[in-house]
């Protein structure tokens, strides 16, 4: 199931850059007025990209008055509060704040734009035949590594087995780098280990299937194996030194400079290291080719390994917007006619745009088997919330529990009780 990456990378090779005009862009005569767009890409506001795109958009639609693009730094937390109050602009972004059956309460259907057919994960924010959100791009979780740090430690080949990975990490530790930067204290970076559970299981519907499981994180289950890998890395002293105070911003600088040799996140993080990380580390003129990307070898099979891939944030439109035509035109423009997704290092959600991230070619060379997770059922969201086993923070607290086995039993127990309630 390499079609995602293979299609994307071969498109890049063939330099197909012009997207076809198959979608139904709104009639320029109807597109007028002004809208407010809340985004989390504050860096693209600061560097003028949004201004540039606004100018291009206004050239296409002369009746447009203004597009106000407002950046929110702590987007995930703030947007949830805004959704509750009804004051969330015209165009905004969402990830997993709203359960699937409630999407229609907040957002406008995007079916008439005609782009959903050419879109990855179009069913992720859909309900009852209506597509409410379209993602910027797709990310796959893998090991992003600093090539210089690896070379300095004497590692000449990318590890293809878990034992080789650990051996490589031991060499890195001896040479003075943090072998893998897990950012344990921040919590959310550990969410990659959720994706790893899906990868280990090889089943795109893995997360939904845990609804039927009364002991989802038992040691022999994919979840249990994923956490075991995490504990192994931490227990062998291969993670960063300070696991109790949050260092996310600093860690980008570590990866850029080589003080941190690798981390397990998605390809979206590569451009962040190359730009923000280099700035934090005080390195000018950073060569992004110093960063590599390979699938995490989670067992001794030697590959090819499964890799969990999923959508990033999606653009959505407020159901109560005063200017639906303008909002839809802006959304379609940003997603299909700008290079936003490519700049951010995603595989663009719109299939006709090729990904431009060079590290994806290296990733593809290891022939990973991409597993695209199916959309979470509303029942799954409900059980995850009720049981508290809900993402990186829960994984972090499990890792920190003094008695690991007791904590696992507690989580399994609460999961089973929550699932029973849901039925």
């Amino acid at each position, binding site marked *: 199931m390499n079609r995602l990456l293979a299609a994307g990378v071969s498109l890049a090779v063939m330099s197909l850059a012009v997207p076809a005009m198959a979608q139904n862009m709104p009639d320029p005569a109807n597109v007028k007025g002004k809208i407010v767009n809340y985004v989390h890409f504050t860096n693209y506001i600061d560097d003028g990209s949004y201004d540039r795109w606004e100018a291009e958009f206004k050239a296409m639609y002369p009746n447009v008055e203004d597009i106000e693009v407002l950046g929110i730094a702590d987007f995930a*937390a703030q947007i*949830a509060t805004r*959704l*509750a109050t009804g004051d969330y602009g015209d165009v905004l972004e969402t990830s997993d*704040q*709203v*359960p699937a059956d*409630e999407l229609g*309460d*907040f957002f406008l259907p995007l079916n008439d734009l005609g782009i959903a057919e050419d879109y990855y994960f179009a069913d992720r924010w859909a309900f009852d035949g209506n597509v409410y959100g379209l993602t910027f791009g797709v990310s796959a979780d893998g090991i992003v590594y600093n090539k210089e740090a690896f070379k300095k430690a004497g590692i000449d080949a990318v590890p293809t087995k878990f034992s080789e990975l650990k051996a490589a990490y031991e060499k890195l530790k001896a040479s003075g780098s943090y072998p893998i930067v897990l950012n*344990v*204290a*921040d*919590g959310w970076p550990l969410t990659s280990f959720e994706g790893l559970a899906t990868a280990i299981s090889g089943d795109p519907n893995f997360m939904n299937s845990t609804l039927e499981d009364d002991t989802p994180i038992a040691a022999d289950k994919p979840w249990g194996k994923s956490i075991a890998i995490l504990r192994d890395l931490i227990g062998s002293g291969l993670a960063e*030194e*300070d*696991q*109790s*105070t*949050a260092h996310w911003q600093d860690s980008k600088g570590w990866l850029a400079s080589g003080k941190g040799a690798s981390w397990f996140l998605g390809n979206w993080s590569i451009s962040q290291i190359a730009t923000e990380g280099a700035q934090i580390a005080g390195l000018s003129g950073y060569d992004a080719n110093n960063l590599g990307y390979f699938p995490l070898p989670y067992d001794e099979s030697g590959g090819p390994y499964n890799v969990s891939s999923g959508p990033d944030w999606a653009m959505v439109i407020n159901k109560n917007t005063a200017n639906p035509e303008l909002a839809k035109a802006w959304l379609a423009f940003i997603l299909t006619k700008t290079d936003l997704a490519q700049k951010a290092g995603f595989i663009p959600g719109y299939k006709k745009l090729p990904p431009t991230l060079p590290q994806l070619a290296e990733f593809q060379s290891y022939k990973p088997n991409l597993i695209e997770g199916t959309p979470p059922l509303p029942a799954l969201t409900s059980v*995850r*919330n*009720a049981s*508290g086993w*809900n*993402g990186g*923070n829960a994984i*972090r*607290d499990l*890792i*920190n*529990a*003094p008695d690991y086995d007791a904590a696992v039993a*507690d989580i399994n127990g*609460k999961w089973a*009780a929550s699932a029973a*309630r849901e039925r």
Partner: protein
Amino acid sequence: MTFDAKFQRRLTIFVFLIVPVTMLVVFNIYPILQLFWISLTDFNSINWARAKFVGLRNFVDLFTFDRDLLVPMTRSLYYLGSSLVQLVLATWFAVVLNQKLPASRLFRTILFLPFVLNAVAAGLIFRYFLELNGAANDILQLFFGPDFKVTWLDSSEPYSNFSLAAASVWRYLGFNLVVTFGALQSIPQDQYDAARLEGANQWQMFWRITFPTIRLVLFLQFMLSVVGSLEVFEVPMLITRGAGETSTFAITMLEAGFQNRRAGTAAAMAVFMLAIVVIIFGVTRLITRGRSAVRNPL
């Protein structure tokens, strides 16, 4: 048309009160009433239109299905213990500074300064001080060599709560100091002079004159500490993000409400905490009823 004096006075009082009372109702009373209402629903913190009335189910769940949400309350004991230490220290400082030593005003200001500091700034100061590569370890490395590192904060170990409680003591010591110092001002100096003439030493003067007089003020401060240690939030949140063993009741409440989208459960937790606080203050009133805070010394 003229108003008589009584009416004018009533009108003046009303006009001056209308603004603060309106603000109290809008920003305080109404949200509390809404909190009670939310605790009786299954609101998912985003979609009020779909919130269903579930009666007392959230409260029943809190003691059965969601029992694990109450576990972080035990961390409050660390903060309570440190509050006792804080109170003792503050009283000691207050008594010493009451002796009219030179620069006592300067010391009072220095000790009070952390309380005036912005809570986030104070939290971050301690984070940079206590983290593994932070200032505390740097200072120790001057004495014990360049590789000496004490893990002051380890989210997997309960002892980290002592470090966090120490940060809390640093911050709130000044408040206790100022309150106790104020209470000490009401003791007339001639009591001490008479005692000194009769040959009493410092400890006897404290125990027999000072302590009985300010006993009630200290008790009130202790009760405030109990409430404060139940509600502790910003110190662990800023320093360790409330991870693992450093989580507290308030942090768990916020996680339940906003991360896990269970605003009904979180509201029930808040009402539960409110009930505990009301009980504590009720007990305080019972014990202090009829006595004035600073007993008439004569």
